[in-house]
């Protein structure tokens, strides 16, 4: 089982108790997770995130974990850092956190980033929430509105997209656009807070779901529980666990 949405590093607002790659690996091993696509929590709050991305690369370079670079496309050196990551760090994807960092998906500088990602066939992770939005004191997350997100998905059919930590309501809002897109996926970490988290999703939506926990920000075990106890077709569970359609 692969965790396609996880982090290491220091979170600026409270201790996570899982900050190193070894701590993350131990948490994963306890839950039967054998690898991950990992990002740096520091990069969410650093202004020049080259430092934290370099640190992430050093931490995971001899592991089976893949590097998901976190960027703010408004930073003037963004594309330089992404290109450095492609050439030197073998990055597997690029993550953005627009609602938490305070910009729209319509920002033209994001379009420049998307062009680079398309050229290199790299997926874009769009993180809709970080911590519990009710408890965001210094930084208030404002996730993309329905129209904004749908419009972005609709206009980027040649870009692989992973929606991270999207709530069920947000997924319902974008379901039509998501399913019309050839490679738009979402992860487990937002699947909570209502009945029938995974088992009540339509089959086409289940086929767009991949396993991601938001660890250590969110509970790893909680994400696993859904797959263990819910009535989901075994072949779908396997696809979710391996991200077969995503990688």
């Amino acid at each position, binding site marked *: 089982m692969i965790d396609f949405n996880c982090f290491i590093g220091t979170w600026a607002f*409270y*201790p*996570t*108790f*899982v900050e190193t790659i070894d701590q993350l690996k131990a*948490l994963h091993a306890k839950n039967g997770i054998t690898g991950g696509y990992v990002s740096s929590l520091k990069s969410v709050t650093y202004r020049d995130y080259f430092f934290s991305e370099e640190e992430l690369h050093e931490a995971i370079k001899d592991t089976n974990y893949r590097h998901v670079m976190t960027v703010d496309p408004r930073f003037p050196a963004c594309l330089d850092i992404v290109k450095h990551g492609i050439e030197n760090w073998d990055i597997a994807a690029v993550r953005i956190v627009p609602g938490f960092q305070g910009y729209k998906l319509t920002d033209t500088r994001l379009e420049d980033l998307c062009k680079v990602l398309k050229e290199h066939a790299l997926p874009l992770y769009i993180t809709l929430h970080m*911590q*519990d*939005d*009710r*408890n*965001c*004191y210094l930084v*208030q997350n404002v996730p993309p509105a329905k129209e904004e997100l749908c419009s972005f998905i609709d206009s980027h059919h040649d870009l692989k997209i992973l929606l991270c930590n999207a709530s069920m309501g947000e997924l319902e809002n974008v379901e039509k656009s998501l399913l019309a897109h050839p490679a738009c996926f979402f992860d487990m970490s937002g699947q*909570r*807070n*209502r*009945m*029938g*988290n995974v088992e009540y999703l339509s089959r086409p939506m289940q086929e767009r779901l991949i396993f991601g926990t*938001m*660890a*250590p*920000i*969110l*509970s*790893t*075990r*909680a*994400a*696993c*529980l*859904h797959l263990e*106890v*819910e009535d989901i077709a075994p072949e779908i569970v396997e696809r979710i666990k391996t991200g077969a359609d995503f990688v």
Partner: protein
Amino acid sequence: MKIYDAHAHLMLDLPGEPWYHGRPQLKRGEELYGIEKYYISTIDGPALWPDEDCIGRCNDMTYDFMCERPELVRGMAYLNCRNANTLDELKKRVDQGFVGVKLWVSQLCDDPCVDPLAEALIELDMPVLLHVFYKSNSVYGDESRANHVRNLADRYPDLKIIMAHLGGDVYHAMRVIKDCPNVYVDNSGSRGGGPDMRFAYDMVGADRLLFGSDCPIDAAPALGQILDLDISDEEKEKMLWKNAHKLFKEDMR
């Protein structure tokens, strides 16, 4: 492991999807996660300051479910301390076998209007479950925060208090109540924050923490938070059921 859910709800008269009414979700928790007991109160979501009639209908709904599933359901009487009949309503529900009281957002929990209820509950040796939340983006009715819980706990050290939702923000709340031995804490209603229970455990230890789902919210986030902890099975059992068993005097039922 056994699981007792110390914080679950039925919802009164709400339109919308069936899962949100509570019963399907309670059944789901029972079947999928093996939850053996629910401590249930019925609330009327839109009514932040419910009148006597509304409170009566809520508690009737809980009582119906208690009668239907006596092995599964323990009733928590929902009260609004601003209503004149609060102590009469309490007596009626105690006679029906309710095991505790739930206060939501119709009064701050340290408001003087709570005092007669607190004194009655000490006499009855029954716990009170308090909705507590500290939000950055909104306040819901007269929503108590951890400092209000601390005031009540200090005023009534013999009152057994359950502070819900890890105080709504565990990092804001736990340090405030950690020195109040009469305050227990449930982890219901969170978004499943990874480090939250570890922080709560470091603050008050395993003896004062309770599993709660806040059903109709799914049980997985709160259950996962406890199962994630690197602590002994014995301590996890305390959180999952033993503390509730003791607090609600299940040996005597």
